[in-house]
């Protein structure tokens, strides 16, 4: 899924100004929401178009990518690229900013920290210095009543390390990069044209004034007390993730054990060789080389496991935890509300769940 590689119109910008915020058109938000929730539970992706102005990245339009399964069934790698180019050409004709600034993707319960994400990021980053990934979680809106839209980008430090080559222990220690420093969130702002704002204001006037209090769908979603299914699924994912993390740690531990064993073997070999050489010298013979010999199994360097996977899993676990905490806090508050409305306010245990 390396869509970005097919895109030739990456506008090189000076990377000096850091990206402070992402400004998204209401239109784009609606399109993303529509595409992602219509195709759910299939995960979908699409391209973001816009302009890169100073510290803000303006996303003014987007278009969806066809379903990957369908594209794969046709067996056409180029097909996706063709679709993309054709769409961009068409959009240019109707005066849309046809400058790729990133992509969007849907996610299920916030499980988006994958190697694929990083790969796609890197592919995009080759052409576009500053690109973002907008992640939308349709499940969140429906079950918690909050709006699950996030803009992500890779941190400069991670990119630096990645550019330098392999993702090894030494490099990470060198830059003191922790798992939290791979991806960072960029604040999102919604912007609209004045026309649209006026139009929408007029159209929703009746909705907003209805019943005077303007009860909306998200109000109803928000009041739903049952958060158990959401929590259950999140916990399930979390425990799966923990298993993965344990496996990953096992791998690292295994490697470390192997390394220390190898080092002691090497030391042994060296002392042996030195003793041998001392003997040979005493006998007046040419000393044997004391350098490492690659044919010797004790010196064979073993491949170091990539830390990226572990880092991503850690991120994912963190994401789940945050999500679970938020949901649990919200449901506690709702419970308190229910207790209050039932006239049983006194049963509420004094809990500060945020602490």
């Amino acid at each position, binding site marked *: 899924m390396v869509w970005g590689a097919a895109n030739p119109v990456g506008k090189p910008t000076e990377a000096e100004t850091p990206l402070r915020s992402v400004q998204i058109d209401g239109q784009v938000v609606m399109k993303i929401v529509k595409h992602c929730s219509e195709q759910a539970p299939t995960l979908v992706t699409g391209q973001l178009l816009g302009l890169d102005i100073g510290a803000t990245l303006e996303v003014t339009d987007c278009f969806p990518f066809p379903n990957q399964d369908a594209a794969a069934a046709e067996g056409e790698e180029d097909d996706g690229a063709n679709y993309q180019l054709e769409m961009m050409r068409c959009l240019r004709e109707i005066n849309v900013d046809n400058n790729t600034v990133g992509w969007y993707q849907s996610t299920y319960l916030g499980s988006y920290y994958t190697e694929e994400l990083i790969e796609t990021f890197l592919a995009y980053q080759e052409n576009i210095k500053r690109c973002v990934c907008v992640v939308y979680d349709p499940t969140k809106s429906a079950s918690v009543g909050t709006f699950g839209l996030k803009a992500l980008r890779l941190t400069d430090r991670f990119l630096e390390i990645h550019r330098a080559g392999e993702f090894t222990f030494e490099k990470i220690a060198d830059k003191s990069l922790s798992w939290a420093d791979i991806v960072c969130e960029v604040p999102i702002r919604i912007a609209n044209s004045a026309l649209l704002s006026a139009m929408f204001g007029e159209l929703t006037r009746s909705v907003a004034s209805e019943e005077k209090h303007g009860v909306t769908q998200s109000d109803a979603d928000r009041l739903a007390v049952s958060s158990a299914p959401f929590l259950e699924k999140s916990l399930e994912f979390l425990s799966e993730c923990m298993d993965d993390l344990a496996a990953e740690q096992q791998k690292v531990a295994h490697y470390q054990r192997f390394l220390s064993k190898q080092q002691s073997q090497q030391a042994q070999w060296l002392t042996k060789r030195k003793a041998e050489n001392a003997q040979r010298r005493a006998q007046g013979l040419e000393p044997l080389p004391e350098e490492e010999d690659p044919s010797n199994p004790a010196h064979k360097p073993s491949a170091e496991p990539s830390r990226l996977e572990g880092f991503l899993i850690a991120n994912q676990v963190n994401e789940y935890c945050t999500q679970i905490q938020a949901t649990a806090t919200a449901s506690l508050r709702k419970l308190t509300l229910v207790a209050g409305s039932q006239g*049983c306010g006194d049963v509420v245990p004094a809990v500060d769940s945020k602490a």
Partner: protein
Amino acid sequence: MGAAFLPVHGAGKVASVRVHPVVVFNACDSYVRRQETQERVIGTLLGTVRHDGVVEVKNSYAVPHNEQNGQVYVDVEFHRAMIDLHLRVNPAEKIVGWYSTGDGVVPTDALIHEFYAHECHNPVHVTLDVTFADRDRLVRAWVGQSLALGSKDASKEAEKPDAEGGEASAAEGILNATTAIHFQEVALVNTFDAAERVGVASLAATNADVVTDGDDLGATAAKLRGMLEKASAYVDAVVAGKTKGDAEIGRRLADALSSVPGLTKSQFEKLFGESAQDALLVTYLSNVTKMQLMLAEKLQTASLLI
């Protein structure tokens, strides 16, 4: 959206049109981005037609066009290319009609409508008034019926609806038209479900922050409270004999009341305690997990530095 439903004679099976907000967004955007010389923009509407004649407009894209002296040039190639691309993403969305900016129907619409009549059966025409002439009817939907110019009889003329003004013939001023289109307004419903989820207020604003971790429960509770107060005020007024009770409202109130589970205090306490404990346990668990993660990181990096 304020338009009343008019019985549509001979206009196919289009009963009403439901417009997804994304279409409004798209139309506005394309109007803002139009060519300098262009007075209005048109575009293709995509969606589905339900069995009961409700046309759901779910998506749209702008189509370049050019109007001069009653002649219209629509970029058909562009339209075809776009529809191909859209069908690859969502094959379920077919062409259902077209939109244009402007208040009501203008003469050249007949030509465009005829073009879309070849693209789909019974196209709908949605107009979006960007001049805000009539604030209550910014978005309007029309269906067209092809008429042979000669047979435009008096009965049709006589049937022009009253104050709604929902009918307009667009035959005049078309140079090469052999047929005229008889436009009739149909009911239009805006569906804002999706927009509401995002927050209508933040979406409609010219510049707003997204409320992702919305701390809106307070606001929602306040709304709920307001509604309850209103209901109880009404009930009090009826009981006091100040207002005449409406049976329909009474039934609704009874429904609402009966949906409240009748729990005793001890039952409720038990339920409440269980749920609260669940939530707290889960919070605790996730906190422990986070702690574990941090600890693992610290220990790992510490041991690796050797």
